[in-house]
């Protein structure tokens, strides 16, 4: 039994008398800590619409898909590989992967077609889950994308970043519709209403802001207008329900 730095447990069959080593079998895999610092954080978690799988992403520069029933890893995507299949060069100063590949938020589209990942360095990357090809890849800003969410109807993707802005995307052609937001601090949580008409955000200054989509205009009376709205998720740590 062998434990590795890559947070894996391998079983290696050995015949000691003949000094023969068999084929290793990996029993457990997990996110690991390749960065030379005191922690390597795991930020992103999203369930598949079918709930039989979930995705996690971490500063270890991987996106991993897990099976809910067996609790085993199905797939591991390396963020250091770009859309052309090329390995992204390490930062020459630190000799480590740059923050633009430290994954920090993940969401899966309601029809299960796309998985989107936001990174600590402000990159957005979207995969088509059918063939795991990258369909969109772009630096949105230089700051941490802490949350991103697909609308319940699957038409939009909204990303919230530490540059106090929100980024709205059309998922049919992966074109950016608008950069918006009136937060006075880093955007940290986003929720959609079930009808995909509105979003609410929490930011680091403990404000709840409401916006109408796709116009992206702030609804300053959102707290009362949307008092009885049904929300698709409850990511916000502030609001009527908490």
């Amino acid at each position, binding site marked *: *039994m062998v*434990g590795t730095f890559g947070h*894996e447990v391998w079983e*290696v069959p050995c015949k000691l008398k003949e*000094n023969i080593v068999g*084929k290793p079998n990996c029993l457990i895999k997990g996110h690991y800590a390749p960065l030379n610092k005191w922690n390597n954080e795991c930020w992103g978690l999203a369930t598949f619409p079918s709930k039989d799988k979930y995705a996690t992403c971490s500063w270890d520069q991987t996106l991993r898909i897990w099976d809910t029933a067996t609790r085993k890893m199905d797939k591991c995507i390396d963020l250091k590989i770009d859309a052309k299949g090329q390995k992204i060069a390490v930062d020459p100063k630190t000799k480590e992967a740059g923050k633009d590949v430290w994954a920090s938020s993940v969401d899966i589209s309601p029809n299960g077609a796309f998985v989107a990942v936001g990174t600590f360095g402000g990159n957005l990357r979207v995969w088509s889950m059918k063939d795991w090809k990258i369909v969109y890849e772009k630096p949105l800003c230089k700051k941490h994308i802490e949350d991103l969410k697909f609308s319940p109807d699957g038409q939009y993707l909204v990303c919230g970043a530490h540059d106090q802005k929100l980024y709205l995307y059309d998922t049919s052609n992966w074109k950016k519709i608008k950069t918006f937001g009136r937060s006075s601090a880093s955007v940290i949580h986003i929720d959609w209403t079930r009808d995909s008409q509105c979003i609410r955000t929490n930011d680091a200054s403990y404000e709840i802001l409401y916006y109408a989509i796709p116009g992206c205009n702030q609804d300053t009376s959102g707290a009362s207008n949307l008092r009885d709205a049904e929300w698709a998720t409850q990511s916000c740590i502030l609001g009527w329900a908490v």
Partner: protein
Amino acid sequence: MTKLHELKGNGIVKSVRNLSFSPSGALLAIVDNSDDHNLAVYNVETGTCVAKAKGDRSAIQELAFKSETQFATVGAKHFKEWTIASGNIKGKMGNFNKKSNMIGSIVANEQSYLTGAATGELFVWNGSTLSKVAAKNHSKLIDAITVQDGLVFTGGRDSKIFALDAKTYATKFSIDCAATFTGSSSAQIRGISYSP
């Protein structure tokens, strides 16, 4: 599974870095992550502290018992052999004999200690003196050592495992984990256990 004892205090002021049982299982030694890398030895049955001491200013990585009264701690620029006698604990600094003092792992083998160095060398210690270089199989730090079933297994940051005869230290076989652990994120070895 039921909790027998909660071991608190007795000099352990920060998170536990590592722990090790004595050969009979009667004693448990703990080292913490504080600046002094404090040590505490407990009686497993009663949960009482038998002895405590400041470890070293250098970071302690691992520790291993050789007998019911002696154990050793290792780390970066650190080797100390500790002797427990009637509630007192005394540490003796290791003599590295001009060999590498960056130690990553330790295990007891009969009446000696085996330690893994940053140079990839496996050292044999007679008490607190480095007596012999048993092997130089690895090219990087040895993070994992275990002695089981008459074999010494060493695993290192060079992603290799070697199995040596526990008496002669002759290399029996090796595993190239970087080549055979297909799909591994990093095959640097952090722990080995053998089931006979």
